[in-house]
């Protein structure tokens, strides 16, 4: 094998990958590119932010956008740009962690319910459908009320609010796949249930769940911002987009930039996630399977 065949293989693998296909359209490139920049910004926040997000300067409070505070300052004279950048950290990490928990638990429950069926399935799905029938925000509020405000409880609240979606989606996939001939063939070869579930059923069920998870991160950001707006999420001085909008709403007419910039951040991020998720669905060609839940 020479250098060229190695390079060809690598290029082929890249060309075939669905992620790359999602980036191939204009919308995919813009939304995906924005998300990559956003994640990098959140990760490298301490090196990028021009000011300390918590440093107060009451002499320069409610300063309009300009130099050196590009997006102005809030009622305590804190730099809005720095706080929006750090807010990305809070929003993205809370939402992504919550959805990761939700996807792992949901997939486990859904796969077990779909595979084993019977009384176990009925029990799991009844509870799951029960939570499905309430609005996400209501479930999240209930759990924050029980656990008390803060980022950890926000994370768990969001995770529980979206659990039903992933459980249902995974179960639907597994139930459909169980009918496939190759699963029957695997049984005929004497495979153990764990092997069938982990090696044959789950890998074939994972794509729609991953994409649903990706889209749910967007919803999670909104839910996190909502809880933050009500003062139930990040506690001061930790910056969170929702909490910033909440404090900004008090001075909406005096200094609108305090509310507008975190609001724009939420909107643009969620739109980018949704657009990229759509492109991913197209690239993976799973539009029909997404509806199965």
């Amino acid at each position: 094998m020479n250098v060229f065949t190695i390079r060809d293989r690598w290029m082929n693998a890249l060309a075939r990958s669905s992620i790359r296909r999602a980036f191939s359209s204009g919308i995919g490139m813009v939304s995906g590119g924005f998300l990559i920049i956003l994640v990098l910004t959140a990760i490298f926040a301490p090196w990028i932010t021009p000011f300390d997000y918590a440093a107060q300067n009451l002499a320069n409070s409610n300063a309009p956008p300009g130099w050196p505070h590009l997006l102005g300052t809030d009622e305590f004279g804190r730099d809005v740009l720095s706080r929006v950048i750090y807010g990305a950290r809070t929003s993205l990490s809370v939402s992504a962690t919550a959805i990761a928990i939700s996807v792992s638990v949901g997939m486990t429950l859904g796969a077990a319910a779909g595979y084993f069926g019977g009384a176990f399935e009925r029990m799991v799905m009844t509870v799951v459908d029960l939570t499905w029938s309430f609005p996400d925000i209501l479930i999240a509020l209930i759990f924050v009320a029980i656990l008390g405000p803060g980022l950890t409880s926000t994370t768990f609240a969001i995770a529980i609010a979206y659990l039903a979606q992933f459980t249902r989606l995974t179960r639907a996939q597994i139930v459909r796949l169980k009918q496939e001939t190759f699963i029957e063939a695997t049984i005929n070869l004497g495979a153990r249930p764990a092997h069938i579930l982990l090696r044959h059923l789950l890998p074939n069920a994972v794509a729609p769940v991953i994409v649903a998870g990706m889209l749910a991160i967007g919803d999670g950001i909104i839910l996190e911002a909502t809880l933050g707006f009500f003062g139930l999420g990040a506690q001061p001085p930790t910056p969170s987009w929702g909490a910033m909008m909440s404090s900004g709403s008090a001075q909406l007419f005096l200094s609108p930039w305090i509310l507008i910039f975190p609001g724009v951040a939420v909107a643009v991020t969620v739109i980018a996630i949704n657009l990229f998720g759509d492109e991913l669905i197209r690239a993976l060609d799973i539009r029909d399977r997404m509806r199965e839940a």
Partner: protein
Amino acid sequence: MSILEVRDLGVAFGPIHPLSGVNFSIKKGETLGIVGESGSGKSLTAMSIMGLLPLFGGRITSGSINFDGQDLTKLTDRAWRKLRGGRIGLITQNPMTSLNPLQKIGPQVDEVAILHLGMSRAQARTRTVEILGTLRIPEPEATCNRYPHQMSGGMKQRIVIAMALAAKPDALIADEPTTALDVTVQAQIIRLLDDLVKKRDLALVLITHDMSVIAQTCDKVVVMYAGRAIEQGPVATIFESPHHPYTQALIGCIPHGLAENERLNRIKGTVPTVMNYPKGCPFHPRCPRAATICSTTQPQFASVGESSAACHFVIGDAS
């Protein structure tokens, strides 16, 4: 000494009894054909032998399936898993969908030897390549790195056969292995199976609705109709002197150098559905010879020479 012996097998799905009174036995190195129309219970027989009935909500109500001294109707789940794929291989009729679309061919075939023979991954791969070679699959090593969608139907069926053979089974059940393939490939696969039986001393149960395949490859044949075996015996005898009117009709349907404008033979009527199997002999509504006794009493098996048939005319109580 038979390796597989099915005695008076009866199957029920709830209140419905789609299969009853199936008897046959098979030795190593022998091929047994099971032939019949769709819905005659051929595949159900295969599923019973593989212990797959519970999966579809069925159960064995009577009889025994004896495999190498064990009664399969009394096995636990764990014992079944050892047997399936390990000592009895099953080849199903749909190679197109019998492989996991997300896994490469190699790992899928390796898995069987790892599971049943306790081989390491590397050993299993060596064995896979060897088996693919004996099944005349070109470039066995490269094939291991392909995905199912990159292969043709005939090749996929060979892979499925390779998986069935990977754990050195004693018996192989092929449930219409060629139905989904085109005619030229069908002949290749049938020849391949025939070869395997001779070289590996396998016992092969070949389920088909193609009488010409039976004639080419089998030693013995069981003819099934409406969930019952109605005639069985050595292939040569059955083809030369079929006793049951249904077998006669089936053989009469094999096309044989027809003249222009001549029509193909067919059996009048349709196979009864499981819900309303007729009383008496199940074939009597379509039978050209049916007498009164045929519609009232179920005929028992009676031997005629080397074969046996369940027909009142063979027994001699109808004329």
